[in-house]
């Protein structure tokens, strides 16, 4: 037995939407928060000039953070490590998981560049001791080293480690750690708001038919089925 849902027409819905007042300053803050957290320095600068919105962290520190992120994304992990340590030596000293992932990325880059001997030496000297201390590190180390066992790395079970997405994952981890050390939220607020929107719609779906947003990028209202 299906319970019948009430229907809200588009007119009704739009009227309700129009009644909701949102301040421009709040919207600007959300945008600035996004730009700053994600590290778009120039955009943040411009936006500040145009809207008069003040960023909640010093834009200068953003450049440093972005330099680190970029270095990882380009595969220059050693450079990234040096930069993080210049920025704040505590981050890697108090974050064994992050440090391990950066070292792991270095190993991946050595393997990618065909420097096999160097890779093995690096794994033995730098990573093996970490693996001894921690079971999950050991497992990840073994996965990474196993890349060397395959002729065709692009098709092997651990091939994803060589993918650009791995670099992005590591870069994101470093970015978050730097933000946290600066007492800043590591996630921008906009994605959370969108998640709440989707959740709210799902809740409402149980009781009503109403004009939904199905495509977040266009945000068009789609009429309820009649």
């Amino acid at each position, binding site marked *: 037995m299906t319970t019948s849902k009430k229907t809200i027409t588009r007119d009704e819905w739009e009227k309700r939407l129009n009644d909701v007042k949102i301040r421009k300053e709040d919207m600007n803050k959300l945008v600035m928060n996004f730009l700053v957290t994600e590290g778009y320095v120039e955009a943040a600068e411009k936006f500040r000039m145009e809207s008069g919105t003040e960023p909640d962290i010093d834009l200068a520190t953003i450049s440093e953070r972005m330099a680190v992120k970029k270095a990882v994304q380009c595969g220059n992990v*050693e450079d990234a490590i*040096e930069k993080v*340590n210049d920025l704040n*030596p505590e981050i890697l000293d108090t974050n064994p998981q992050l440090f391990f992932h950066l070292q792991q990325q270095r190993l991946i880059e050595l393997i990618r560049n065909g420097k096999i001997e160097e890779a093995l*030496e690096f794994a033995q000297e730098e990573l093996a001791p970490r693996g001894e201390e921690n079971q999950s590190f050991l497992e990840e180390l073994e996965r990474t080293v196993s890349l060397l066992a395959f002729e065709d790395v692009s098709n092997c079970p651990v091939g994803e480690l060589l993918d650009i997405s791995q670099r992005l994952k590591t870069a994101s981890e470093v970015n978050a750690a730097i933000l946290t050390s600066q007492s800043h939220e590591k996630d921008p607020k906009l994605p959370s708001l969108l998640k709440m929107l989707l959740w709210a719609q799902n809740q409402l779906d149980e009781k009503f038919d109403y004009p939904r947003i199905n495509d977040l990028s266009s945000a068009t209202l789609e009429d309820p089925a009649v």
Partner: protein
Amino acid sequence: MPSATAVNKHRPSELLSRLASDDPEVKVRALREVKNQIIGNPTKKLSFLKLGAVPAVAGILADSIDEVTNNNNCNSNTSNILVQSAAALGSFACGFDAGVQAVLDAGAFPNLLRLLANPNEKVADAGARALRMIYQSKLAPKYDFLQQKNMEFLISLLNSEKENVSGLGASIITRSCETSLEQKALFDAGILRKLNSLLGGGSLSQRDASLESLATIFRNNPEVISKFAGPEIGRPLSSIIDLVKDRHPRTRLLACMCLIVIRNASPHFLQDIGIKSKIIHILLELLDDPSQVGDEAPFAFSSLIAQKEDLQKLALEANAIDKLYHHLKKGSLHPRRYEGILLALADMCSKLESCRSKFLSLQVLNLVADALTDHNAGVRTAACVCLKNVTRSIKNLSAGYFMNEIIVIPLVQLFPDPSTSVQGFRWQEKSERPDTFPLLDAVAALGAVSNIMVDFTTRKSIFVQCGGMKQLVQLAKSMESAVRSNALWALKNFVFQADNRLKEGVFSELTASLLSSLISDPEPSVQEQALALVRNLVDGCINLIELVFAEDGLILGAIGRQLQCASKAEIGIQGMYALCNVASGNEFHKEAVIQQLFTQMGDKNQSFVIKFLQSNDCQLRTATVWTIVNLTCPSSPGAPGRLEKLRNAGIISQIKNMVNDPCVDVKLRVRTVLGQSMAFGDN
């Protein structure tokens, strides 16, 4: 192809030689490389340490500071050197005690302090950070708060806008403030007000650091707490209470810990049941946190509920045991977290039967038994403490719930090697728990076993079969007195109402000479347990009374001698009950007992009997009167003779004075004695 890899270029010894270069640019680069190699890498820290890197870097720091002082200026090269050397030293000290020690030994501490005054922000910051790392370690130098100069310096640190500098101030307080005098001095200097303001207006790390410092200043000091919270109108302590709901897990944990410190020192604060429930709820929720915060949460929970029945009840209603069980079930726990959860369960079950029932109904016992064989010693000890507390449940002991292989065998395996010397035992660090005492792994296992030994069913033979009984006897010979007394305790419980065969088995393993020497042991606690063991051995069966006569009455003699010089009431109680049980036997037994009561007198006029009868301890009086009852029992032919002896020693008149003894048990037995004495004609 030459194998000059990137790794080879930076061999530690090669780097260190570059540190000694005269060229400042080479020096800076070498410092930076050392720093980058050691950060995050404990293995590298150790290997550089062994090569003498720390004194080398400390030396560079010292030279550069001298240069700055002498030239009264700091150029960019020198600044770089200062920053990099401070950062390197800070990293050596970060989470690495050997590094902290090396930095201190190299004399770097005063130089790092001087960096704080450097006009270059980066230099001052690097110095502050390095010092903060040092102050996170127990090896940090003790800060003398009571000196005016030092207090002023501390205040200047806390007033700084820079996070690392104010953080250093807070770390110093958290590490070094120990006595109530120091706590008061900090209060008088206005430090608490400053810390309180950081709770509201500071950054995340400043808030967290302040919470830790406040807790340190409040610890065990109700006066400071009331001075701090008293004048507040409206909601006292609101600044801390609000942080309990902060979005950051670490802040929530630290705020809870601060409130717990306050409550433990001054119970009249935070009486509100709402706040108590809130803290319990938040701590249980923090168990979900995967980081160190979740590891520490159960310890905070323990410090809240330990020894406090009302809070244990509240926690039970909040489903604490279910939640702790849920996390225990997950498995693959970090050892610290594992230990914490087990200790939290132990505290929950320490007093309330309702908690123990809940524990047993959820089948947590099997998981705790698993923990007995964990490779981490702290986990094993925590499991033992948990078992010890759960087995206080008489209801379940009498149902024979615990005497089974799953529990007994791992416990016996935890018994230490009797030949282990004192150094071999591991002492646990004092924690925040109010009922804290240093635990020996062995004692913990023995404690758990002791309770299980009080098994009212007939399955005690399991313990003999797995060799546990023999091991206990061996442990009774240990060099460590705590082990001896706890082993005897377990044996005492083991033979309690056990069948004759079991008792005889224990006795033959122990031997009369060992038992009598234990009765005369230098340690009172050992004497007490040995006497109690004899009491239980001879209780209930006339055949077993013969045991005290073995080898020329070794044991009986030992009992008599020990009673003569009993240093505390408990020893007298157990000894008298032992004699009482012997005196419940036949004529020969009774004669032997009365001999003991008198032959030990020596040049003393008064038998210890009178001393015991006049004791403040009701149990001691009871035990003594009971013994007299047995000695003067009318059905025995020798009763009149013994009665005469007692009368002559003034014991009967002493007993006459006790007809209105406040203790009912004593009063009734006194009447029995007097009734029995009248049967032979009183005077």
